[in-house]
């Protein structure tokens, strides 16, 4: 099948699943945010701002901001609060905040930005298929000048900034070059651990190395507790597991290199990861019937007390009756003492090339990523991408406990001292499907670890060769 050209991505594993468990529906988004929130809002509402650019500075200005976080109510509540604060700090400026669902945004962005009626600031999706194409077609502006002006590298690590928004100006290599997008909030994938079940099994601390983890899984199996509550029907979890198993065998940087596509051949660690996954499946470490339920189903079961571990994202935190009975930790690396995790920003914010108010837009991005505003994010249960070091205090002030607190505090230590890694499926447009379907087949014994690697390599090699060559 033709895997080569890339336009649209689907089902970002960390993306729209956020609202399921963590966020209670019923929050009222201020009328401001809803003003043009209908699905057609982003494309058909005439912008009142285009004509204002040439007029005098005293005249009122409307800044059109477009989000793709539709459905994530708590997150949008955070944005609404920051919009109000931004307007207060900039007299005469009105923020027109339009919201699209993730798929609506990603599927229409290229067309929208190539037209004449474009937002001043918009969220984009990371990866070759999405932001990469916008860069290639010169539809978004490089933000290097703004980054220098506002000193963004002081608030987010070089690694995180590059992960979320760096591309070569031709859009052909990801992770270095100019900066095209910055994220305001973050998300990471880790091991959820049931501490009560751990205590019953004689396990006292989260695993520090892969060997520790395997010992814990074996203890759980012997003790009659599901070792890893695991659901693969929606793809995400097996992809993260494979990525973590690649990472834990050697340098975490390996995963970044794979995603950035520095070579068209996958490293041998992929086979090692496949063999480990098969070994775990054969040992009965996964939930029975894992292919029939989703990663979210798995978290649901886990939150009810089933199992010792589950693998999921910081956006899927839940409120347990006994918050102290659960913790969320990064997946162990090969060596004790080092931390690394799939940890990236939410959809980064970019400025379209045809934006009417690019300077004000840069100021807006600066404002929402300012660590001085972290209290607003934490108060809404969100993980601020910029780290100020006050997160632990903010979490305590907001009375956030359990895995919800871990999601925020451990992000800040990951972003400061650990290694932040990209989602593996950013590498090619079809890898999400290829990895998840092949992992299901591998787990069920339909294919061997070698065949698994071949499936991934065929997809990856074809896309990477074409990208580097053409």
């Amino acid at each position: 099948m033709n895997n080569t050209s890339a336009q649209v991505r689907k089902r970002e594993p960390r993306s729209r699943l956020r609202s399921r468990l963590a966020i209670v529906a019923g929050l009222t988004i201020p009328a401001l945010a809803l003003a043009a929130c209908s699905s057609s809002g982003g494309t058909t509402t005439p912008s009142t701002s285009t004509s204002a650019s040439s007029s005098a500075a005293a005249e009122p200005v409307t800044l059109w901001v477009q989000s793709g976080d539709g459905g994530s109510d708590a997150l949008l509540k955070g944005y609404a609060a920051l919009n109000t604060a931004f307007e207060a700090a900039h007299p005469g400026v009105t923020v027109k905040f339009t919201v699209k669902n993730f798929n609506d945004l990603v599927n229409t962005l290229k067309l929208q930005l190539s037209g004449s009626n474009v937002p001043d600031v918009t969220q984009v999706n990371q990866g070759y298929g999405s932001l990469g194409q916008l860069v290639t077609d010169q539809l978004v502006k490089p933000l290097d000048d703004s980054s220098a002006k506002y000193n963004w590298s002081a608030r987010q690590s070089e690694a995180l900034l590059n992960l979320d928004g760096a591309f070569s100006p031709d859009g052909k290599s990801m992770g270095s070059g100019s900066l095209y997008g910055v994220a305001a909030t973050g998300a990471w994938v880790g091991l959820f651990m049931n501490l009560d079940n751990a205590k019953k099994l004689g396990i006292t601390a989260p695993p520090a190395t892969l060997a520790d983890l395997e010992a814990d899984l074996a203890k759980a199996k012997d003790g009659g507790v599901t070792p890893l509550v695991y659901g693969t029907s929606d793809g995400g979890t097996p992809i993260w597991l494979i990525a973590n198993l690649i990472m834990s065998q050697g340098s975490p940087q390996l995963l970044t290199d794979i995603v950035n596509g520095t070579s068209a051949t996958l490293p041998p660690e992929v086979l090692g990861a496949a063999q480990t996954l098969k070994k775990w499946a054969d040992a009965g470490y996964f939930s029975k019937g894992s292919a029939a339920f989703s990663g979210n189903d798995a978290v649901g079961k886990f939150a009810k007390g089933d199992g010792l571990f589950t693998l999921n994202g910081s956006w899927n935190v839940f409120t347990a009756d006994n918050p102290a009975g659960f913790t969320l930790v990064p997946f162990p690396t090969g060596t004790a003492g080092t931390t690394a995790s799939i940890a990236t920003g939410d959809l980064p914010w970019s400025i379209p090339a045809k934006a009417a108010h690019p300077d004000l837009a840069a100021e807006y991005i600066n404002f929402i990523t300012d660590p001085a505003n972290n209290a607003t994010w934490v108060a809404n249960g969100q993980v601020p991408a910029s780290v100020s070091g006050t997160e632990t205090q903010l979490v305590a002030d907001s009375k956030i406990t359990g895995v919800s607190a871990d999601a925020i505090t451990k992000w800040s230590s990951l972003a400061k001292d650990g290694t932040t890694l990209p989602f593996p499926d950013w590498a090619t447009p079809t890898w999400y499907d290829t990895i998840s379907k092949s992992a299901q087949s591998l787990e069920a014994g339909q294919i061997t670890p070698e065949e698994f690697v071949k499936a991934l390599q065929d997809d990856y090699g074809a896309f990477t060769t074409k990208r580097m060559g053409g």
Partner: protein
Amino acid sequence: MSTEAALANTPVGGGRLRTSPSSVAPGEPRKIGYAYVLPALVMYVLFVLAPFIHTIFLSFFSWDGIGPQEFVGLDNYKDIWKSPVFRSSFVHSIVLIVFYAVIPLLIALLLVSIMNRSKIRGLTFYRTALFLPYIVAPTAVAVIWRWLLSPDGPINSGLTAIGLGALTRPWLGDFTFALPAVGVVGTWVMSGLVLVLLLAGVQKIPTSLYEAARIDGAGAWWEFWAVTLPGLRYEIAVVLVLTVTAALRNFDIIYVMTSGGPGTSTIVPSYLVYQQAFIVGSLGGAAAIGFVLAVMIAVINYVIARIGGTSS
């Protein structure tokens, strides 16, 4: 003759149309007829024929939907031919035809011949109840069945409750049973439609034929074989065209229930069209699969129509 001329020839008083025998043969449809079908024809050309031809055209290009189109000849078709996933998707379609068309037809024939031999009270009620699955939105059907078939769902619980716990399995996550499990949903949806169509057909078979068969000493089986089945031939052809088409273009139920998984064990051509167009961003590849699928549906339906409809 132009349309205007035809109109001009129509007598105002509503008398018979006078046309010279040389221009229109007797019994030949008047050309004014084209004016009557024109609105529908315009719609058909605009929204069915033109997109169809455009799709065929696109299948010879490599195109991401926005960027430049690059002519690649038959490469998209070669890619399809070489892909084991694509070939297996057609095998899955054929399995689904059994569940969507063959099994509902057999069930409906059985029910129709039983209903035909005995008076059933509340037939209208049963007919409505059996037809209901067909008018429920397929996505809703799929969501309901995904729940029924889930590992902790009612079907597994029911099996455990009656002592058949050994048969329980994660139906939609099982490489062997996921496709039949999805197929059963098709059987459930289609049986009502097939039954209603056959019931209507059986009512127009003259009772005299049944009486004649009985006088000749035919039992239930021969009555079915010699009277009911031939009498329903046209209805069966219609039913097969509808159900086979539904089986081949199945997308919504697969997408919601399994997304082609586990592995690629329930992947079907329509899902691959979606995947190529919206995930890979290869509109050319998607168009090629779509065209192959359309040809396949056309050929199968032509065969059905030949066997069922015209040979007498």
